């Protein structure tokens, strides 16, 4: 079954993993997939939001400057600036004049709003596939419950760590 263009292997697509490491700045791993149907700004924004949601980026922590991150990821500075501005707008980051960009106190809660929309979109796609295959509403709910059960088996404290 097709999973859309992102999963199909392309010879021109490779990923880049960056570990940002500095005594003053939080270690942050971002992975960029080139040639993806997901625009680069959305990839970076989504990953920073995930780091906030999972607590790997804590309130008050400073992110690399636009210049530093652009250089590290080899991505246009304007793109990074737009990502930061978007995350400031969404309440995940704040820019303190002359000091840099920091994770806000409300970052975790706000990142859930950010992710809710994305998850809904992905679930909608999956649901569409299920309906096309003739699954009923009950069967779809069963599948979701089964997926959750499988995850609980692998990671028994799944829900606690994400609280």
């Amino acid at each position, binding site marked *: 079954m097709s999973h*859309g*263009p992102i999963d199909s292997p*392309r010879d*021109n*697509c*490779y990923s*880049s993993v960056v570990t940002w490491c500095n005594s003053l700045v939080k270690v942050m791993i971002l992975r*960029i997939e*080139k*040639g*993806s*149907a*997901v*625009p*680069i*700004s959305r990839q970076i924004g989504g990953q920073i939001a995930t780091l906030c949601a999972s607590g790997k980026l804590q309130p008050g922590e400073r992110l690399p400057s636009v*210049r530093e991150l*652009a*250089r590290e*990821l*080899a*991505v*246009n*500075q*304007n*793109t990074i600036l*737009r990502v930061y501005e978007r995350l400031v707008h969404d309440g995940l980051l704040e820019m303190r004049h002359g000091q840099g960009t920091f994770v806000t106190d409300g970052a975790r809660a706000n990142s859930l709003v950010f992710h809710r929309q994305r998850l809904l979109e992905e679930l909608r796609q999956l649901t*569409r596939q299920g309906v096309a295959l003739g699954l009923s509403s009950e069967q779809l709910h069963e599948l979701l419950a089964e997926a959750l059960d499988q995850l609980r088996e692998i990671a028994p404290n799944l829900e606690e760590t994400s609280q």
Partner: protein
Amino acid sequence: MNDLAIEIHSVQKSFGKSEVLRGMSFQVERGQTFAFLGRNGEGKTTTIRMLLGLLNRDSGMLRVLGRDPAVEPLAVRAQVGYLAEDQTMYGWMRAGEILRFVAPFYPTWDHELALKYANDFEVPLQMKIKHLSKGQNVRLGLVLALAHRPELVILDDPALGLDPIMRKQFNRDLITHLQGEGRTVFYSSHLLYEVEPVADEVAILDEGRIVRQSGTEQLRADVKQITLPSDAILALNKKVKILDQRPDGNEVAITVEGAESVVEQLRCESVEHRVTDLNLDEIFEAYVMGQGAPEIGKFAGVAKS
């Protein structure tokens, strides 16, 4: 001084009977990183040679930093840095020697800056040029292109022949030393997935014309594939620009410009549809290879050969 680094309007150029540029128009703002995309043999290098005043146009208007390179080629070249596609340098010279050799050609050459770039780009100055790796060679070319502090830097397919690691390093140099210093970069390439992270703006050249110029991110947001029932295509506004369409059973997948308004329209008319994001390669392909719709709704299921 206007805000345009490059201004091209209705430029035509033929070589004998072969018409290469057929009324090409585009503009590059100062400070932008501009990617010039096209298939091989579409006239990218011809355009670059015109920008440098090495080749004259048959007709049309062309300005580089406010000057006409056909009239003032030296004044233009003094303010432009150029990295050729197949940079050939004297192999017997050492890297450091070629820096001193090239310096007198440019009144504004800054030798300290040249040495600083050579150091930043890790170019071994003691080594003979013929012994440099491909990556070192490209970066030496970049030192030569930058040391006279040009306002505009023209790079003709710089990533050609570089491996992924070297390409990433090259993109970093470009971001730090060119974008970071506010220079205008005009960058031709056929490796679209390399262009996307770096370029502010892209232009697609096809059959001698620019078929689309747009901000990189805006292009991604604007051009999407929409799958809808075949008969619903008739309900679309006639003004919708369809770049490509592929029948798929009783559905059709269309690639459109202005995706947002098309989706809005389909939603208003309650037409069942799916929207797929496209990567830059797919968007490029839709523009240069796509089967557009001369008459909307008229597609008899003819497979693309």
